[in-house]
């Protein structure tokens, strides 16, 4: 099951340089994510627009982490399948403005390679172009000098390069060059950046992801890109020594003074051995963020210029060690062990234990900087525990960083005790329970009586309904708000279930013979017949799929991926107006579970 991401990537570079398949693409995404994660603090420190809250790097990393989780178990060889799952994961897990934009870029990329098993450099360039185009479409008034601009200009360079016949490495080099130049121009396009003496954080983040792609294509081992997430303590230690040589201590402080010169201060700190130095602010107040082996020298220099506030010096070696240990611990818990009871969500292992920087930049004293959301390492205010059956479903639910997953479903309902144990193990005191089956709602409600914790049962009767409820979950909102939003959301999705009758029966007044396929729409028998395909078609029609936008087909445990894809193709034929997705559910009993939303 879900082990460390890095453990499953043994091949370090694509075998064919002229085309990437799904698994190559998966590793390229991983490399982009790892490279971003490694640089997220520096990106955080650049963040002054739209709000100087220093979280751009973190938000983009969390968005990529959600996307990575969505593909961690996708072993499909097709590039389009991997890209689609990745884009969907990014959409579901999008955080902040920059993360939302990134999710749209990935969505456009995925759409553009929709039917391709492998992609060429030209396809890749087209994908970047389509990604930028998609991203621009989601806002009425695109602001230039942001990640939007960078994605567009980088894509233009990618297209030119691909049309000249460049291979992947050349293409990415050209794209990076243009991307970096575009990032460097962002202060000329957006005055707030210029005032603060920084380039755009989101744009920098985007280029960082591309750089990860490039390093992978050049043959750099992905597992060396991240400074955390190591296989063994020995390896972790090796990683740390590397970091120590490179960075030593991270030093962050605010400097208040008169006539401060951002550029001169940056050069002076770099002259003292500062690495990845960011100095942002104005002549009276600025923020310094650097990595150095000699923090004392930098602080002395700061004191000579004015007064220091919010000084934070961290030892990256110690932190990295703790982080690696934490990751190892988290991994033990993160596995979606279908037999082992509750699992803690996997965000912590990719989120980093370090608090993000405080408000910075042009207005460090501004009252408006919002409070940092609690780190994912800490207990969340509100936890969610869901009952899930099937490996595919466990992966899908696993990507939502739940407080717990209880194995169960149609033929193996979890006991009240199982549910209670998961609720107690959930790291939050307020828990929303998703039973995902009408037979489990009662036991779930009993749990509320048995625990000291505050429990709300959102009466989901199917796993797609549970997903609809999760989509309404807002990690920043309180318990009551989430409970209400999730209850409301379950009405937004129609669920169909296709199964085979094991014996002659009378169901909801309809006679069914053994071996017949039966279709249940929202839990009620809607149709039956001898032919699986016909029953599915009728079921979808009765569910009102024709009036919806997205149809998702979740295949059961015994359905091969080829059969599932063939069925999805038929569904696309019946419902040309709708977007149709095929996902592995892996559920027992039901050949297909379908949702329409």
């Amino acid at each position, binding site marked *: 099951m879900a082990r460390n991401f890095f453990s499953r990537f043994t091949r370090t570079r694509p075998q064919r340089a002229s085309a990437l398949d799904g698994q190559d693409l998966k590793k390229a995404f991983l490399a982009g994510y790892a490279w971003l994660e490694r640089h997220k603090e520096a990106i955080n420190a650049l963040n002054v627009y739209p*709000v100087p809250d220093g979280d751009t790097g973190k938000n983009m990393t969390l968005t990529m982490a959600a996307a990575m989780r969505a593909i961690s178990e996708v072993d499909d060889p097709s590039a389009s399948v991997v890209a689609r799952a990745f884009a969907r994961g990014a959409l579901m897990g999008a955080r902040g403005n920059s993360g939302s*934009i990134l*999710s749209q870029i990935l969505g456009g990329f995925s759409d553009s390679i929709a039917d391709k098993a492998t992609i060429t450099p030209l396809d890749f360039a087209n994908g970047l172009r389509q990604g930028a185009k998609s991203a621009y479409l989601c*806002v009425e008034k695109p*602001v230039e000098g942001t990640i939007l601009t960078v994605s567009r200009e980088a894509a233009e360079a990618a297209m030119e390069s691909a049309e000249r016949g460049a291979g992947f490495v050349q293409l990415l080099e050209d794209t990076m060059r243009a991307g970096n130049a575009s990032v460097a121009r962002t202060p000329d396009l957006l005055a707030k950046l210029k005032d603060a003496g920084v380039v755009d954080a989101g744009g920098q983040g985007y280029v960082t992801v591309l750089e990860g792609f490039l390093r992978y294509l050049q043959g750099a081992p992905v597992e060396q890109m991240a400074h955390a997430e190591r296989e063994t303590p020995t390896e972790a230690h090796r990683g740390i020594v590397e970091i120590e040589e490179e960075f030593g201590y991270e030093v962050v402080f605010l400097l208040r003074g008169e006539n401060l010169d951002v550029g001169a201060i940056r050069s002076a700190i770099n002259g003292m051995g500062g690495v990845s130095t960011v100095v942002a602010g104005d002549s009276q107040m600025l923020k310094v963020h650097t990595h150095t082996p000699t923090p004392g020298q930098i602080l002395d220099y700061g004191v000579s210029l004015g007064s220091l506030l919010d000084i934070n010096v961290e030892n990256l070696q110690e932190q990295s060690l703790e982080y690696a240990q934490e990751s190892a611990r988290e991994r033990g818990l993160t596995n979606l062990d279908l037999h082992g009871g509750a699992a803690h969500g996997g965000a912590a292992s990719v989120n980093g234990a370090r608090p993000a920087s405080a408000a910075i930049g042009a207005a460090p004293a501004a009252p408006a900087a919002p409070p940092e959301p609690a780190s994912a390492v800490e207990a969340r205010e509100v936890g969610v525990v869901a009952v899930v059956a099937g490996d595919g479903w466990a992966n899908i639910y696993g990507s939502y960083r739940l407080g717990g997953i209880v194995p169960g479903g149609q033929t193996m309902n979890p006991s009240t005790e199982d549910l209670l144990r998961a609720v107690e193990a959930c790291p939050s005191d307020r828990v929303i329970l998703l039973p995902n089956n009408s037979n489990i709602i009662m036991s779930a409600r009993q749990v509320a009586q048995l625990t000291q914790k505050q429990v709300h049962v959102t009466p989901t009767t199917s796993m797609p309904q549970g997903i609809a409820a999760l989509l309404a979950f807002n990690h920043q909102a309180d318990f009551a708000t989430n409970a209400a939003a999730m209850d409301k959301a379950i009405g937004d999705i129609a669920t169909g279930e296709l199964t085979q009758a094991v014996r002659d029966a009378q169901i909801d007044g309809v006679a069914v013979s053994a071996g017949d396929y039966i279709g249940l729409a929202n839990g009620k028998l809607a149709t039956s017949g001898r032919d699986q395909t016909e029953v599915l078609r009728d079921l979808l029609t009765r569910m009102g799929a024709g009036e919806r936008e997205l149809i998702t087909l979740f295949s059961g445990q015994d359905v091969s991926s080829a059969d599932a894809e063939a069925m999805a193709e038929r569904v696309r034929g019946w419902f040309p107006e709708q977007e149709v997705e095929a996902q592995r559910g892996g559920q027992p009993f039901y050949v297909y579970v379908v949702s329409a939303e």
Partner: protein
Amino acid sequence: MEVSAHAIATIAAQAAIECYGVVGIASRRPRLGAVQRLAPEEYARGVEVRFVEDHVVIEVGVILEHRLRVVEVAHNIMVIVKYAVEQALGLHVVQVNVNVQALRVRE
């Protein structure tokens, strides 16, 4: 210093329309049940401003792109609008309520 509700509404609307995922500002009171998408010069009409003692409560009506995670976009709008108004006018904004009047679905 007195700041008019209209000035606050104008700044709030400008901040909101630049938020990623926002594809329109809409009138808070739908006319005859239909959401009214506002032209740029009328954006302020999509924002309602209330004063609670020295504090400001802002309600903003928006049309969002449906392909994004709506709760996240709404949260971004709250943070960005609050910051923009406080930064520009030095007021304390205690609440920004985002009313999603419609979602835009494109082909």
